[in-house]
C-alpha cells in the first residue's frame, strides 16, 4: 500500500462547521470497509506537518469514489477546506480494522455524536445494501451540525436527532430513547462513535440486554501504520488490561472490551 494522489471531485461546506469532500479513488486497489480510515495530507507542503486521519463517510464502489465528512476544527482541517475540485490530495489508506456486520443481524442500532456520525454513515450505507435495517440516534451541538447527517435517511435508516441546543442530548434522555428503540425493534447489534459519554451509556445498555456492540475510537495519531504506538487505548483481555493501537487493532473494537476513561 502506498500513498495515492487522488483527484478531488468536490470539496464543499455543508453546514456552519462541517465540510464534505469527494475524491476519485479509481487508483485504489484495496477494498474499503466502513470503520476504516485514511490519512490525508491537508496541504501540499509541510504545514501542517502531520497527516490527519479521516474516517470514511461514503464508499461508492461502482463510481470508484470516496467521500469524507469533516469537522473544521484545527490547522489541518482549515487547510483542507482550501483545496478545490480538480486539485489532488495525498491519501494513504485504507487503514485500520473495520466494523463487522454478521450475516444473521437484521436490525442494528447506531449511536453517533458529532463527527462520529460520518463514521457510522458508511456503516448505514453498507447495512442498507445488505438489507439490514438500521435505527439511529444522532447527537450534535446544534440542528445545523446535523444537516450533513440527513444522508443516513437516504439509506432507509430510521433516524432520531438529539441536540444540545434543544436540550435533548443528555444521557438520561438518550437512555430513554435507546430503551424504547430496543422495545420497538429486534435490535441484534449496536454501534457507536464520537462520544465517550454516549459510548459508556451504550456499553451499559448493551451489557444489560446482552447485545454485542462495536465502537470506533478516535485518538491523536502519529504514523497510523502501527509502528509508533502513539494512538493507544486500553482493552480488557480476560482479567487483564491490554494497551493496543487504535490505528491497527482498531479503530473499531468490541464495545464491551474498551476501557472508556
Amino acid at each position, binding site marked *: *500500500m*502506498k*500513498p495515492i494522489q487522488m483527484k478531488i471531485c468536490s470539496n464543499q461546506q455543508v453546514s456552519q462547521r462541517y465540510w464534505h469532500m469527494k475524491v476519485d479513488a479509481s487508483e485504489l486497489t484495496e477494498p474499503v470497509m466502513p470503520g476504516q480510515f485514511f490519512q490525508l*495530507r491537508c496541504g501540499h507542503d*509541510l*504545514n*501542517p*506537518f*502531520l*497527516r490527519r486521519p479521516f474516517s470514511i463517510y461514503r464508499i461508492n464502489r461502482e463510481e470508484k469514489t470516496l467521500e469524507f465528512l469533516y469537522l473544521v476544527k484545527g*490547522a489541518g482541517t482549515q487547510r483542507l477546506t482550501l483545496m478545490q475540485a480538480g486539485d489532488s490530495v495525498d491519501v*494513504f489508506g485504507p487503514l485500520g480494522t473495520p466494523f463487522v456486520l454478521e450475516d444473521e443481524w437484521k436490525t442494528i442500532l447506531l449511536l453517533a455524536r458529532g463527527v462520529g456520525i460520518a463514521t457510522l454513515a458508511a456503516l448505514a450505507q453498507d447495512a442498507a445494501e445488505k438489507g439490514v435495517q438500521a435505527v439511529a440516534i444522532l447527537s450534535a451541538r446544534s440542528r445545523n451540525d446535523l444537516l450533513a447527517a440527513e444522508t443516513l435517511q437516504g439509506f432507509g435508516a430510521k433516524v432520531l436527532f438529539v441536540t444540545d441546543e434543544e436540550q435533548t442530548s443528555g444521557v438520561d434522555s438518550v437512555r430513554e430513547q435507546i430503551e424504547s428503540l430496543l422495545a420497538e425493534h429486534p435490535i441484534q447489534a449496536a454501534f457507536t462513535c464520537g462520544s465517550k459519554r454516549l459510548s459508556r451509556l451504550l456499553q451499559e445498555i448493551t451489557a444489560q440486554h446482552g447485545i454485542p456492540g462495536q465502537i470506533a475510537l478516535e*485518538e*491523536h*495519531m*502519529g*504514523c*497510523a*501504520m*502501527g*509502528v*509508533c*504506538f*502513539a*494512538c*493507544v*487505548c486500553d482493552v480488557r483481555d480476560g482479567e487483564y488490561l491490554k*494497551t493496543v493501537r487504535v490505528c*491497527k487493532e482498531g479503530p473499531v473494537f468490541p464495545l464491551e472490551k474498551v476501557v472508556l476513561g
Partner: protein
Amino acid sequence: MTTELKMSVNIGSLTLANPIMPASGAFGEDMEGIIDFNQLGAVVPKSITKHPRKGNATPRVCETPAGMINSIGIQSKGIDYYMENVIPYYGRYQTPLISSISADSIDEFAEMASIIAGTKEVAALELNISCPNLKGNGAAFGMDAKLTRELISEVRKVTEKPLIAKLTPNVTSIQEIALAAEAGGADGLNVANTLLAMAIDVHTRRPRIGNVLGGLSGPAVKPIIVRMIYQVHQVTNLPIIGCGGVMNGEDALEMILAGASAVQVGTASFVQPTAMLDILEEIKQYMVQYGITDINSLVGQVAAGKHTTEGC
C-alpha cells in the same frame, strides 16, 4: 551512460548496502507492505526493554511547527517476546538488523546486550543511553560522560558485535559525551535522540502531551542535529549515524557533509510512508548530478572555515 554508484558504508565491522535506515520507534513490521525492507541499509526495530512496559498516558504525540513532540514511554513486550518473535521476523530479510536496547541500569544493559547480540540474526546493537538511570538519580546515562563511558565499556565486555551509542542532544557538550562513548569502546555514534520539549494548550491550560514533557523531532530540530554531527565529527573518527528531522535527500546529504556516514529517518515516514526509499533515490540523483561515485567521499566534506565555539 550509467555509472555504478558505491552506496555502501561501514559502521565498525558492519557493512551496510546504503546509508539509509529507520530511526528506532518510527519503524516496524507493520511497514512491510509499504516499503521493501531489503532496500534499506539496515532495519532498526523499536527499542526493547527487559520487562514488558505499558508506556505513557495519551496523548503521546502532538504536532508543533515543523515537527512533533512524542512521549511514548517505550511501550514494550519485553525481551522474551523480542527474542521469540521480533528477531526471527527480521532474520528473514537480508538487511542487517540493528537491535535498539533500552535499560534502567548498566547491569541490565549488559545483560540484555549479551542475550540479544548472542543471536546470529542481530548484526549490531544500538544502545539507547538517552533513557534515565533508575539506579542513579534518574538522569539519562547519556547526560553524564562518566556513566556513558562506564555503560559502553560494560556492554563492550559481553559482545564483539558493533555497538552504536545513541546520544542524547540534551547535553551541554555533545563532544564530551561522544569522546566518553568512544573511550568506552563504541564502534559508532548515533547523533542524536529527540530534544526535550513541551507544548501547552492555552485553552485548557493542560500540557499537550500526557507525560507533560516529550521529545521534539522533525525539521525543527535538523539544524541543531547537523551542528552536533559536525562537532562530534571534529573530535572523533568513529562513524556517525545522523538522526533528526531528515525529510528528503538534501537533508540527508547535509548530515553526511557534516560528518555522518549513515542517516536515520524517523518522523518523515509518518508524513510520507515511503520516505526512506525516496531519500535514498534523491541521494543517488545528487551523486549523479555532481559526479560523485562513492558516498563515502562526501562524509565530513563541508567546506567550513573557522568558527567561534558559541556561534555568536
